[in-house]
């Protein structure tokens, strides 16, 4: 019998909802069968905790006396440049921004010890952060310089807003060249010395709802330790990639844009990360509840690590040069075992996304729902799915000198 989100919420309020994690549901369905499990279970919780570029936060720091306008000037938070080109005292700090004076890769490989991701982590943890604004004065905003400490508790609004998070599946990165390479997939040893991956597999939110049948715009989620929402599809959303017979994409596919009140979040679940030779980013914790509306939706949540496949990609040549071609397909059970076979060679595996933390998030969310403090929301619009025709395009370059503006 099909259920509705409204009915599930009624049960959550009464403390009667049956909530299990995306790991527990596998075992449960194995014992009781899909049909019975779908009748019994109301919600399956998922989780992921990994480095997610295209993350950042915006906030309003309040008007100074006299007034100042960041727009048209420059703004720095702990020496990291923030974007202020949209108002007077609103700023957006991006996760991959780094201080102007960072040596970057001029001493290779650069360390990138501090960046926008670390600023967000420090803000969230309640630490004071330095703000320096330099701009031009106007009749209504006369001031041209501001130097002050700010603290999250004094900000008017502080919102985490990540235009692309939660990748549905990802590549497995290897290095076929003769030298060590430093990538956003970590340090890759030469000649297939190791392999890195970045997904929580069977716990990962979008892999548990591969066709976005329940996750849509407006879905309430666990975000950075607080409550957030899916606000749009993520950038590079690519729902039409090849899928297995089980419906699960076998390469990077869907993404979501998420937002939520930064003031409720915690530095346990938002961490600045430094990728040697590459740059900084933010590691974000996300958990999404999946309402078990029918058997089909339940069935998707019972997919195991061995049912989820990913492509092995060479990051020394094919990734940077955008040459198509996979060195093979492996599943997450193999990846999690500690080694995989690539081109007849055994490569040891390491993950960038923390499975232990993903499990913790799925359990926290399960707890919140169990206690009745977190209700499910009805999406207000769906995400483009496999039949949408939406694809992720490469750039068609039109050199500035030769072509005219159309």
């Amino acid at each position, binding site marked *: 019998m099909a259920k509705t989100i409204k009915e599930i919420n009624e049960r959550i309020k009464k403390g009667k909802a049956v909530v299990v994690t995306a790991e527990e549901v596998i075992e449960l369905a194995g014992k009781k069968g899909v049909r019975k499990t779908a009748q019994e279970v109301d919600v399956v919780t998922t989780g992921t905790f990994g480095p997610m570029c295209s993350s950042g936060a915006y906030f309003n720091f309040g008007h100074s006396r006299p007034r100042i306008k960041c727009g048209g000037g420059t703004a720095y938070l702990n020496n990291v440049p923030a974007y202020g080109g949209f108002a007077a005292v609103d700023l957006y700090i991006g996760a991959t921004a780094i201080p102007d004076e960072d040596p970057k890769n001029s001493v290779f490989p650069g360390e990138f010890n501090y960046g926008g991701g670390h600023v967000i982590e420090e803000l969230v943890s309640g630490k004071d952060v330095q703000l320096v604004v330099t701009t031009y004065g106007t009749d209504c905003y006369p001031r041209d310089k501001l130097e002050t400490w700010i603290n999250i508790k004094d900000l008017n609004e502080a919102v985490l807003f990540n235009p692309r998070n939660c990748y549905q599946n990802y590549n497995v990165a290897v290095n076929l060249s003769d030298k060590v390479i430093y990538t956003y997939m970590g340090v890759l040893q030469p000649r297939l010395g190791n392999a890195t991956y970045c997904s929580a597999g069977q716990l990962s939110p979008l892999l548990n709802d591969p066709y976005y049948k329940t996750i849509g715009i407006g879905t309430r989620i666990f975000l950075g330790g607080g409550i957030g929402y899916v606000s749009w599809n993520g950038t590079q959303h690519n729902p039409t990639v090849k899928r297995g017979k089980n419906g699960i994409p076998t390469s990077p596919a869907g993404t979501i844009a998420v937002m939520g009140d930064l003031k409720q979040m915690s530095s346990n679940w938002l961490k600045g990360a430094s990728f040697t030779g590459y740059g900084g980013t933010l590691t974000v914790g996300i958990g999404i509840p999946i309402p078990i509306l029918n058997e089909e939706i339940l069935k998707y949540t019972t997919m195991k690590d061995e049912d989820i496949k990913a492509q092995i990609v060479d990051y020394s040549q094919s990734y940077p040069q955008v040459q198509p071609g996979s060195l093979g397909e492996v599943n997450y059970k193999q990846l999690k075992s*500690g080694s995989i076979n690539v081109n007849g060679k055994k490569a040891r595996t390491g993950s960038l996304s923390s499975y*232990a933390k993903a499990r913790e998030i799925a359990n926290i969310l399960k707890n919140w729902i169990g206690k009745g403090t977190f209700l499910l929301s009805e999406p207000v619009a769906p995400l483009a799915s496999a039949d949408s025709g939406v694809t992720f395009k490469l750039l068609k370059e039109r050199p500035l000198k030769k072509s005219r503006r159309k």
Partner: protein
Amino acid sequence: MKKKRVVLTFPPDMIDQPITYHLVKEHDLMINILRANITPKEQGRLVVEMIGKKSSLDTGMAYLSGLGVEVQPLAQDIKWHEKKCIHCTACISICPSGALNVDREEMLVTFLKDKCIACELCIPVCPYRAIEIQF
């Protein structure tokens, strides 16, 4: 027989001297070089395992100190900050000694100090700077 893992730091002018030879020959020690890092005109670092009688180890160490070689026990060299670790396992695929290891059930990472050969390969790998060299 006793075993000792130490980090030897040589001043630049001593890099070309047959020190390990003397340790073997005159102090009756077995020397296992775990890692060598020598750059011309700079100081050299050697991570070695010395095996021998306690008395031989003592005289061997005294010989090295006398030459101006800095001797540090290896275990103090690398520190893993458990609180900073998010248990991602990125370091697991490169640690050659198994010092950084993961419980595959719990997917939690631990650091076994005794196994660490201070190769430092994990240092640039950890995005949270949870592993640190301590001098």
